[in-house]
């Protein structure tokens, strides 16, 4: 029963065929059985979860109906949970307990969700493999010697191995979509501002967005309904209407225009990945969508602009970790500056330091205009590319990653190569548009999952959900089970 989707779990719970306590216990039994191998979690909240499940059962017995009542959900460990640790997989926050819940946590709880635990990640969401966790790496449930992707690799691996029914991740440059693609699950990065980030530990504030990682597009719609919408605690959350996204599940896609960006199909990806993506586009055509070629001419500059902007923002956001107000403090210091320097040297991991250095450099006196300002201007060009392309179509289809999940350790020596693999995902963050990854095939002798990316206009998650759901009704890639 741990293999259920949110939709299936709701049916079982409300028809009284299954209690939330039974479902939650089944999820923990699954965790006990596979977590040694997958290591998807940073820490579990077993006792609280069972209490929440009991409370949910009592409410179901009274006939209450809430979107997630009694459904076990996992949270990436940079989403603050009052009274239990939020570590960001960093030594510097190893023992940090947030004094309040993130808005998304309050919304999940108001919708009746059971929170099973916090998932592992790349430290401060910086990385594409989960190898940058200060605790332990997470393994890909499809091939345990491979990475689950990152930075929300723990959330994607937990969903793929059925250690939760669904999860939340965060996406700054692909951190929901790339691990969803690597783990064969569905991942949705909503429009910038769609979901409140109050209580999300900040990485790059002009790019970060929280979103669902699920076993189906239908589940992503349910979760987005719960977590989306204006929040007065987050002034960057957008004051726009929140539609009922589950209504998009019955929307027809016939006659809708599917944009194919020519720059994304110039041989940059593994041939088998390209074949899977192309075949998926044929499937969408067979469902009545009309393909049109579009152009995103500044694609080649996206990685450079992104790493300038993301690292600049990270270097300022992470200046708060100084050993004074919370978190880790180095014991070997004799003056204040020394204490800052030692604390940060001992508390941060390699990739975080690398990005702080790059970010500090591009913002430093004499280099600001040449790098940071230039990056912000190129961001404008990339955003305009998408505005122009999305005038010609409703949804853009593209690959998520150039290749499937790689082996642990394979790419750790060359940070630039790791960054370049983000080419297909980061533009959506720079443009602020919604983007979703759905399973679209399996490649290689190990049958590793591949993702198809759907991107849309600002606040038009509804069309992504409509197209993604129709695709999943016509295919069974998303119901294939990882061999674990």
């Amino acid at each position, binding site marked *: 029963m741990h293999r259920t989707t949110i939709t299936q779990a709701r049916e079982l719970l409300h028809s009284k065929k299954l209690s939330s306590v039974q479902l939650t216990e089944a999820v923990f039994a699954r965790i006990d059985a596979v977590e040694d191998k997958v290591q998807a979690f940073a820490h579990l909240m077993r006792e609280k979860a069972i209490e929440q499940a009991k409370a949910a059962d009592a409410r179901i017995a009274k006939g209450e109906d809430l979107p997630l009542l009694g459904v076990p959900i996992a949270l990436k460990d940079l989403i603050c949970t009052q009274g239990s640790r939020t570590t960001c997989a960093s030594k510097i926050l190893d023992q*940090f307990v947030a*004094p*309040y819940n993130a808005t998304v946590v309050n919304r999940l709880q108001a919708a009746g969700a059971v929170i099973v635990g916090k998932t592992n990640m790349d430290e401060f969401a910086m990385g594409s493999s989960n190898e940058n966790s200060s605790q332990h790496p997470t393994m890909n449930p499809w091939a345990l010697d491979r990475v689950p992707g990152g930075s929300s690799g723990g959330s994607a691996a937990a969903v793929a191995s059925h250690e939760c029914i669904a999860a939340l991740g965060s996406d700054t440059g692909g951190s929901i979509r790339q691990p969803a693609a690597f783990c064969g699950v569905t991942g949705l990065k909503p429009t*910038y*501002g769609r979901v409140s980030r109050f209580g999300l530990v900040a990485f790059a504030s*002009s790019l970060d967005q929280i979103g669902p990682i699920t076993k189906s597009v239908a589940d992503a719609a349910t979760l987005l309904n719960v977590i989306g919408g204006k929040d*007065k605690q987050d*002034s*960057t959350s957008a004051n726009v209407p929140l539609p009922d996204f589950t209504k998009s599940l019955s929307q027809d896609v016939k006659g809708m225009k599917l944009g194919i960006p020519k720059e994304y199909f110039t041989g940059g990806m593994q041939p088998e990945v390209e074949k899977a993506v192309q075949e998926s586009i044929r499937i969408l055509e067979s469902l009545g969508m009309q393909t049109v070629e579009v152009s995103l001419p*500044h694609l*080649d*500059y996206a*990685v*450079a*602009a992104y*790493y*300038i902007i993301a690292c600049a923002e990270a270097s300022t956001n992470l*200046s708060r970790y*100084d*050993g*004074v*107000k*919370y*978190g*880790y*403090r180095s014991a070997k210091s*004799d*003056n*204040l500056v*020394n*204490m800052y*320097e*030692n604390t*940060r*040297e001992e508390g941060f991991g390699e990739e975080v*330091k*690398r990005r*702080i*250095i*790059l970010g*500090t*450099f591009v913002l*430093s006196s004499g280099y600001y205009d040449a*790098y940071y300002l*230039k*990056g*912000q*201007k*190129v*961001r*404008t*060009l990339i*955003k305009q590319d998408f505005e122009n392309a999305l005038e010609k179509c409703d949804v853009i289809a593209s690959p998520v990653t150039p290749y499937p999940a790689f082996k642990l350790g394979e790419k750790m020596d060359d*940070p*630039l190569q790791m*960054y370049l693999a983000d080419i297909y995902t980061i533009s959506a963050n*720079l*443009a*602020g548009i919604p983007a979703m990854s759905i399973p679209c095939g399996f490649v290689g002798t190990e049958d590793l999952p591949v993702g198809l990316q759907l991107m849309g206009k*600002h606040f038009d998650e509804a069309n992504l959900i409509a197209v993604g759901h129709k695709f999943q009704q016509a295919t069974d890639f998303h119901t294939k089970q990882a061999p674990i």
Partner: protein
Amino acid sequence: MDIERVAKLARLKLTDAEKDRFSKQMGTIIEYIEKLNELDTKNVEPTAHVLGLNNVFRDDVATQPLTDHEPINDSPAHSKGHYEVPKIL
């Protein structure tokens, strides 16, 4: 990149091995990002906010704090309601 200057600005005390490694890696990364100079951006406005959101105001009304949690208790060193730090001068 003058790695020692940047590390000082970032308040990071790097080891010699890290200085060597990061210097080399930064060289490669910066060379790559200079690719942006191929683009003429003279007449392009920088993007500060993707949705063009401007200042967001709310009424200045006092509300209850979120929790009764005392933030100072999160500090690794504090006493009598004050943060403790090593000597400054």
